[in-house]
Structures are given as structure tokens and as C-alpha cells.
């Protein structure tokens, strides 16, 4: 019996490893291809580890900067600016809103919650055309604001749907005693409630960053000049221009994925909790 159980566990471990290898192979392939020279990529027999290990695909992008504008590093900075500000502003607007919806019996709160739930399900395509025309009239095409504000429309409803139940689960006595100690409603929120709900807040920040970081539709549509483009729009235009320089494209892809991998390594548990409580898919 004991032996049977050990066998079973060995088999389970082996099966799980095989599954993981199959599922993660594409990611491995992207990373190692970015370190190959293009000639090796088109070799008849593919190399599962680069024979010639080179940083060419990364360094060739540095010089390409000003004129062609398809520079990895410039667009990386653009993406960081857009995604970090979208994350920050989504949280600034949505965290108090989730608190308000959790703690106060306000008129219409049910309708508000339902509206936020519905907006979370809407396709970007639905608002793309009207937003383009609106931004165009306001002279906001080709600014960081256009994709940033649009990305926030994905982040905000998500934050509210995650954090409202979170605030509801905290005991109300906490605030009451804070108020007895001289806090106002607002300072009770910022000094007491916010710090103790930091796991929920981190989950929200991570997801609103990831939404904005992965967005293609908004930045492709609202940003036209090449040196303003985000990474996703940059890599999309790169294939149009340079065709199949797969090593460069994979280098580009690796750089876009890098922050995501770092977030994954350090904040994995927040991602799982966000996924299960918000049930999102970017």
C-alpha cells in the first residue's frame, strides 16, 4: 500500500512536469530565439539552445533609435509612463470608490455596482471609434493621455469589484474605534483601513498595471507618432516594417514580457487571488 502510494506520487510529479514543459516551451523558445543570430533561426535543424549566443537582436535596436523610431528602449519608456500612470490613477479613483460602496448606504449603490460589473465585460472595440472621435476633437490624439485614460476604464471596474468585498469583510469596529480616537471618516480610511487592506490594494495595482501594459488596441489607435508608441504597438509596427527578423521580434517580445515575469515571480499570490476573486481575463 505504501509503495503504491509512492509510485502514484512519482507518476503525478512526472506528468505535472511534462505538462509544465509543454505549456512553457513557447516562452523558453521566445527567450532563446532572441539570443540567436537570424541565420541560426532559419537553420534546417532547429537548435534548442543557441549555438552562437549573441545580444545582436537587443543591441541592434539601440542605434536604430531616432530615425526609424522602432527602438525597443524608447517604446519601453513610453509603456512604463502609460502603464504606471494608468495604474496609479485607477487606484486613486477606484479604491475610495470601492470603500464608499462597501461602507456607506448610499442611494443607487446597487445600480453603480451593476454598472461597474457590466463595464468590466465590455470589449475595447465598442468604445474605440467614439473615443477616437472624442480625443480627436479635444486634440488628444498622439498624447500619452489618450491610451492612459482609456486603459483606466479597464482598471477601475476591476479594482472596485475586487476591493469592495474586501472592505466589506473588514470589521466595522476598526473604523469606529479610529473615529473615537479622533479620526475623521477620511483619515480613518487612509490611516487605518487602507494599510490593513494592502494585499487587496496590491492585487488591484498589479492588475491595473498588467491591463495597461498589455493593451494594444488603444495605443495602436490613439498614438500615431512612432516615438510615442507603447511596446505592444511598437512590436506590431516592427513586423510591418522589418518582416521576419524573428530574433529582433523575439527580443522585443522578451523585453515586453520581462516586467510581467518579474511581477509574476514576486507577486504571484496576488495574481492568483485577483484571478479567483475578480475572475478577469485581460
Amino acid at each position: 500500500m505504501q509503495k503504491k502510494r509512492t509510485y502514484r506520487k512519482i507518476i503525478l510529479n512526472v506528468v505535472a512536469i511534462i505538462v509544465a514543459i509543454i505549456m512553457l516551451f513557447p516562452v523558453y523558445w521566445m527567450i532563446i530565439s532572441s539570443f540567436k543570430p537570424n541565420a541560426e533561426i532559419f537553420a534546417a535543424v532547429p537548435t534548442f539552445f543557441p549555438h552562437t549566443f549573441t545580444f545582436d537582436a537587443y543591441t541592434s535596436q539601440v542605434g536604430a533609435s531616432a530615425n526609424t523610431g522602432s527602438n525597443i528602449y524608447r517604446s519601453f519608456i513610453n509603456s512604463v509612463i502609460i502603464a504606471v500612470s494608468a495604474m496609479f490613477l485607477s487606484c486613486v479613483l477606484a479604491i475610495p470608490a470601492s470603500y464608499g460602496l462597501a461602507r456607506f448606504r448610499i442611494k443607487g449603490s446597487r445600480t453603480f455596482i451593476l454598472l461597474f460589473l457590466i463595464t468590466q465585460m465590455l470589449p475595447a472595440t465598442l468604445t474605440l471609434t467614439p473615443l477616437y472621435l472624442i480625443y480627436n476633437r479635444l486634440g488628444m490624439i498622439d498624447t500619452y493621455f489618450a491610451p492612459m485614460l482609456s486603459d483606466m476604464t479597464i482598471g477601475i471596474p476591476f479594482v472596485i469589484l475586487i476591493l469592495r468585498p474586501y472592505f466589506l469583510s473588514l470589521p466595522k469596529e476598526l473604523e469606529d474605534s479610529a473615529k473615537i480616537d479622533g479620526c475623521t471618516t477620511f483619515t480613518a480610511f487612509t490611516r487605518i483601513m487602507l494599510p490593513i487592506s494592502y494585499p487587496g490594494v496590491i492585487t488591484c495595482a498589479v492588475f491595473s498595471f498588467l491591463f495597461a501594459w498589455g493593451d494594444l488596441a488603444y495605443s495602436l489607435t490613439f498614438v500615431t507618432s512612432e516615438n510615442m508608441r507603447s511596446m505592444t504597438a511598437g512590436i506590431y509596427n516592427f513586423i510591418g516594417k522589418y518582416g521576419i527578423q524573428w530574433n529582433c521580434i523575439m527580443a522585443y517580445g522578451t523585453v515586453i514580457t520581462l516586467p510581467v515575469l518579474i511581477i509574476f515571480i514576486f507577486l504571484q499570490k496576488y495574481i492568483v487571488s485577483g484571478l479567483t476573486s475578480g475572475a478577469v481575463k485581460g
Partner: protein
Amino acid sequence: MAKNKKKLSKGNRVGYAFVLPALIFMLALVGFPIIYNFVLSFYNMDVMTMGQHTEKFIGFQNYTDLFQVPTTKTSIINTIVFTVGSIVFQFILGFLLAILFHQDFKLAKPLRGVLLISWMIPVTVTALLFKFMLSSSGGVINTILVYLHIIPKPLDFLVSSDLAMPSVIGINIWIGIPFNMVLLTTGLSNIPESYYEAAAIDGANAVQRFFKITLPLMKASMLSVIILGVIYTFKVFDLIWVGTGGGPVDATEVLSTYAYRLSFTQYSFSKGAATANILFVMLLVVGIIYIKLIGKDEVMN
């Protein structure tokens, strides 16, 4: 006015102060655009009429025009095929993996976490990565399949009109498996272990336990995973736009890519708006079913 103010208690006013900024933002950037999109779909706004300010109300003409173009029907059917194909396999494979990783063994937790990576990678990157791996010259998937004698010669996965749709579905399955797995794992771990023990004592085998205990108790989480999957797959844009561009011809054109093409490569804004509205109506139906099914409790409490 004064009476109204009295009605709003202090708590009410403070509550609104917390909620209103986000609400106003969403009304301005989502609510208003949706209405504008609706209005737009009844005008003949394109890059010409916009420049000359000659756009005018044309009623349902955009919709009747759209349904005379075969691409519209194709993209509706493609949207459904893409969604159903993706969901069926994502769900089955996700469920199998959820069961696998629900077992008690050493690598279960770390590996389950690592699998999430395929879901987290920006979809644009995933699309290009698979475009690379599936290409008929130098694509590693072709090389492996030929090496294993599964196919005689490299296939043009994303370029041939027969294979493009199954291929993009395949890529989307790879993205969606972890999502299904994680949500279903949560459902599995909510089933009390004692149920299984009792059934085992009564002599139920593993298959019976699965069909008599696991499936019935998983009903709620299975439903919400499937419907959420449908909602998120309906609106997929970047995967197809980057992977195939809706082609070859319109073999993988879905409503979201078609709407994008009409608005931003043909600059027929009103036609794009009308197409997006068709997608919106389809989503609305699924969304209403979802909200009905998960019940008011879960949304409101």
C-alpha cells in the same frame, strides 16, 4: 432642493464623495462613448463627411448595408466558432489540469503557479511568438511535427484559409487554460474532503465519485468559468489582429477585428460603430445570462 438635501444624510454625502470621482470618470469615458457609438451608427460619418462636416442621419442604413456584405455574416459566424472552439477545449483541458494539480504531490503548487505565465504574457507578444513558431519556414512546431512524422511537410498554419481558424483557436486555448485551471481549482478545493471519504466507505469508485460528487458540486464554478470565458473570448481583438489580421481573406475575421478595420483602415467610422454594436448586443445577451445565473447575492453582497 432643501428638502432633497435633508434626505441625504451625512453618511450619504460622504459616501458619494468617495464614489463620485470614479463614477464620473467611467460615465465620461465609457458611458458617453457607448451612447455616442450608438448615435454614430445611425449617421454616415467617415473621414470625408467628418472633414467637410456633412455627416447626416441615415437611420438603419449602416446596418442594412452591413448585412449585404458577406464579410459581416462571416465575421459573426467566425466570432461564434472562435469562441465555442476556444471555450470547449480550454475548459476541458483546464479542468483536467485542475484535477491533476488538486492532487497532493510535491510539485503541485509550484508548477500550477508557473503555468499562469502563458496567461499573463501580453497577447500581442503571444500572437507574434506563435506566428514565429507556426511559420512554415523555420517554425519550430512544423519542424517537430515533421520530425515526428505527424505531417509530411511543413504546413502554413496561419496563412492557409483552412488552418488559420483552428490555429488561432489553438493559440487562444494555450492562453486560456491557466485561467480555467485556477478558477476550477478553487471550485475543487471548496468541496469538503469528508464527502469523498464517505463515498469511499460506501464503496464508490473514482469515476462514480467524480460524476456523483465532483461534477454536481462544481456546477456553480463551472458555469461562471464558461460564461466568463465566453465574454472574454467574444471580444478578443489583439490575438487575431496581430496573428492573422483577420485573414487570409476573411477566414479569421471576427466582429472586433472587422469593426476595427472599418473604422481605422477604411475610416468608415459609422460602419465600424454599427459593427461594434452588433458585438455589444451579442455580449449583452451573454452578460445578462451571467448576472442572472450568479444571482444577485454574489454581485451585491
